[in-house]
């Protein structure tokens, strides 16, 4: 998967520090948002005493099953958001989580996932911070918005983000890859989050409908039976604990979980279970298939008592699976969620709970004309002040009431939970907006280049003069470029790694400069004492698609002409033995339009991924723009 990762170490100190700084910075903004909202709410209620005594329309009591989903998945989203704040996430998520999840999927899935992973890699800090706050925001929103339209919208947000994570983060939960198993996480934790979001987003009248619970539990039962059939399907390797000295499918998964970095207690437990699976694979799978199929059939029957017993069995089995097979899901430094079993059990519990007779329906007030299906939805806008006529501070009713006044009044009379739910939406925006802004550009953040080569060194001295021959055979003196910013580097035309990458970075920088490109000259000096004929420069330019770049100059000369230039710019060039390429420094210089050297960039291109190439191009572009600004 090209471009899927930045090639950096997941613990790279530069990126980790920037990520921590971003999360902390945005965390302060989160606190500020809530403080401002709370302050405004208190202040406006002080301004309008009537708001304090206004009684909102009593909300319809929330169905217990929905409450379970809302609170359960609200907490899960917050846990997931906090897991996203682990230091290795910024660099590690694309290469260590997304890419491995997609590796066994079909090419079209890999293509889709690669696009997302590359986008993340271009802006790892913004992307990782966005993931933190979007998920924490959704969690808070679910917890705080207990009913009404605001609560249903929280479900929609959970559905939307859950689908994003399921498609791009989990490669559709692996449903298009071989080895699909409910025990190991199929059809993906994020699919459960999306389903929960969908259910939470349903109107209250659907929740009050007795058929809803029955449908939920039956569907869940059918799903489990399907998973059991899949688990029992011959030829998929689940019946063999050990196959010709190699672990079977389940044993292999458990072994890989045990190998992950984690506390010794859980490691011992999982390792022990892996041994058990290898020794008694058939029996373990038989138990698994029996429990999954049995509970599935019981739930599919829709009989309440049977469903309840099935749920007990499923919860016990699920917890065992979560510990022994899924290894809690959150360990290893790059766990993004507690895996599929907790959300799966939450869904199962909610489905069974939803089959209970809806006692609350008796208390639902009769609809009045114009009332929406969601009585609570009107809470923020239609709360009537008690004895409104007696309190002059309340805004006048009727069409003459301004929009601002209506909003202010709604805000003043809203419950604190509703106000903080609005704050949660702001938290999501806080994460999403910087990421969207970063993604709107086509270049990678310069943090990757800084992580590879450190910060740049400022200079302030006249650029050493030289006069060499360009790729077209024309003589070019550095002094003839006065009035333009010059990005200068030293390239070997027969180099197999770094020089082609640096050339690609220069080419991309030339494109990024846009209209400013006419004021910037991209210059490379040949650093190879043997392959210095202009035919090599032309071959290199063709290879790196530099021939169309109008402000590109690749200069050469005889070894005697080149060596003083290398020396004046401190470029070390060494003929290495035994088929190695010429050893030379990877450096770029920035020369201001007044002919002074203003900066030296360490320019080892690192792993040469699309993200790092783009990052170096960004760094070059910024350096050129600064040099132009200094003129």
């Amino acid at each position: 998967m090209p471009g899927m990762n930045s090639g950096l170490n997941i613990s790279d100190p530069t990126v980790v520090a920037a990520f921590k700084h971003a999360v902390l910075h945005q965390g302060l903004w989160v606190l500020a948002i809530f403080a401002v909202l709370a302050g405004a709410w208190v202040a406006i209620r002080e301004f309008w005493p009537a708001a304090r005594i206004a009684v909102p329309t009593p909300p319809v009591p929330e169905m217990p099953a929905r409450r379970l989903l809302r609170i359960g998945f609200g907490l899960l989203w917050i846990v997931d958001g906090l897991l996203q704040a682990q230091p290795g996430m910024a660099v590690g998520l694309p290469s260590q989580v997304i890419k491995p999840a997609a590796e066994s999927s079909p090419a079209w899935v890999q293509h889709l996932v690669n696009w997302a992973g590359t986008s993340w890699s271009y802006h790892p800090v913004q992307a990782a911070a966005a993931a933190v706050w979007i998920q924490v925001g959704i969690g808070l929103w679910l917890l705080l918005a207990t009913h009404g339209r605001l609560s249903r919208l929280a479900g929609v947000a959970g559905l939307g983000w859950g689908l994003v994570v399921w498609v791009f983060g989990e490669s559709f939960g692996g449903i298009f890859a071989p080895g699909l198993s409910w025990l190991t996480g199929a059809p993906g934790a994020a699919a459960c989050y999306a389903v929960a979001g969908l259910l939470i987003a349903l109107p209250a009248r659907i929740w009050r409908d007795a058929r809803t619970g029955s449908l939920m539990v039956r569907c869940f039962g059918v799903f489990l039976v399907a998973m059991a059939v899949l688990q029992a399907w011959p030829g998929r390797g689940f019946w063999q604990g050990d196959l010709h000295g190699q672990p079977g499918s389940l044993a292999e998964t458990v072994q890989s979980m045990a190998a992950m970095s984690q506390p010794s207690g859980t490691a011992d437990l999982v390792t022990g279970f892996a041994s058990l699976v290898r020794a008694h694979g058939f029996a373990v799978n038989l138990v698994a298939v029996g429990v999954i199929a049995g509970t599935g059939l019981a739930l599919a029957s829709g009989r309440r008592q049977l469903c309840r017993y099935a749920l007990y069995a499923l919860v016990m089995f699920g917890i065992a699976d979560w510990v022994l097979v899924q290894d809690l899901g959150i360990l290893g430094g790059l766990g993004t969620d507690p895996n599929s079993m907790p959300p799966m059990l939450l869904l199962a519990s909610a489905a069974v709970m939803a089959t209970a007779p809806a006692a609350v329906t008796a208390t639902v007030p009769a609809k009045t004309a114009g009332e929406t299906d969601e009585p609570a939805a009107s809470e923020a806008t239609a709360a009537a002040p008690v004895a409104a006529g007696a309190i002059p501070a309340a805004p006048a009713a009727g069409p003459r009431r301004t929009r601002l006044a209506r909003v202010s009044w709604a805000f003043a009379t809203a419950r604190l939970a509703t106000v903080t739910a609005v704050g949660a939406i702001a938290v999501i925006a806080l994460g999403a907006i910087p990421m969207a802004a970063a993604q709107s550009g086509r270049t990678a953040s310069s943090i990757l280049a800084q992580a590879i080569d450190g910060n740049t060194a400022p200079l302030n001295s006249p650029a050493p003069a030289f006069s060499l021959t360009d790729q077209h055979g024309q003589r070019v003196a550095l002094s003839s470029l006065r009035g333009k910013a010059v990005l200068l580097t030293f390239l070997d035309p027969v180099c197999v790694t770094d020089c082609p990458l640096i050339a690609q970075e220069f080419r991309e920088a030339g494109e990024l400069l846009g209209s400013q490109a006419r004021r910037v000259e991209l210059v490379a000096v040949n650093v190879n004492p043997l392959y210095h004929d202009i035919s090599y420069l032309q071959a290199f330019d063709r290879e790196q698609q530099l021939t169309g770049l109008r402000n590109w100059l690749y200069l050469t000369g005889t070894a005697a002409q080149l060596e003083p230039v290398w020396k004046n710019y401190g470029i070390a060039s060494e003929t290495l033995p035994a088929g190695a390429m010429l050893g030379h420094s990877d450096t770029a210089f920035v020369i201001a339009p007044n002919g002074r050297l203003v900066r030296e960039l360490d320019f080892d291109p690192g792993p040469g991924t699309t993200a790092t190439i783009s990052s170096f191009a960004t760094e070059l572009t910024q350096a050129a723009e600064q040099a132009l600004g200094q003129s």
Partner: protein
Amino acid sequence: MTARKLTGPALTALALAALCAGCGSTAAASQPRRSATAPALAMSLADAEATSQAAWAVLPMGSTSGPNQFWQLFLDAGRGWRLDTPPDIATNGAVELAGLSGASLTTGVRPSLYLTYSPVSSTADGKNWTAGPPAAGLADVPDALAATAGGRLLALSTKGDVSSAGVTAPSWRPLISARELGAGAGRSCKLIAITAVAYSPAGDPVAGASCRSDGVAGVFEQTSIGWRAAGPALPAALAGDETRVLRLVTTSAGMTALIQAGTGPSASLLAAWRPPGGAWTVSAPLTLGTAVVRTSSFGAAGSAAVVLSGQRAETISGPGATWHGTPTLPAGRNLVIALPAGEPVTALAAGAGTVTIWRLTGGGQWALSQKINVPIQYGSSG
């Protein structure tokens, strides 16, 4: 729970599971189709060639593949073997030998990593090198580059096209493509691909090819009236077999070709010689059976050798001679036989960082004569 109640969900679940199992299964491997390109060979680009004054050998060292595999050139100019890899270039993509004459040699470096074209360099003494015109990426065959003593060059590219570069006009120009050759002189042999290039002793471009065969090996020569088939006729028993010119080199004794006829267990190997102005002589076939040609090499006067799988080698001394097996070869990750003029048959066995050189004694034994430690620069190419 009634059976009727269970039937619907159970069938639905079964359908779902079957769908998932189908999605998650790898498709059964389709039947291999006959490829339109040349048959794949396991032959390495490791090579050894000799003139009356010197012998060169090329072997891969370092890692077994990837950016830390570096191809090394060794030279024996009469005072023992020494490392003589061309300087200032990464040789991850293999070194092609061409234009051997006296102590002079031309090399081309195959593309690797981000290098997509082939730098060319020459030496007249094994010490001082000069760059030649950069060629399009050289093909993955041992004879993708040819040179005359005067400096003319012939290159077979990865695209299968042949180009030439002159001395006075040192830029490359297209000469012929596999498609053009297949539609012309190669039509009768049902040409598959061009597999080697050489200059004839008269200085005319020559191309070797793989053919579906009409009983004549695919060797084509450019004359004043265009390209013409110039390959040796094969023994009648091999007339219907697919053939491939594995090697095509020119020495002072004329042209020498190694030709594989047939595939699979019925494959055999033939050497063919054509002296300047003369006709082809073809050796008796060497039945390869299940053996695979690993590397091949040539001496100064038409001798040739091949290293086969199973750590054995066969040599042939020239026109009219027959193939002779050598004793079991010394251990080595990569082996090549060198045939230096006036010296015993020599085996070079390369490991990661050491090459051992063995000579075949009159008693039929391999005797260690030299050991060269090669200072591999790991990490210098990525």
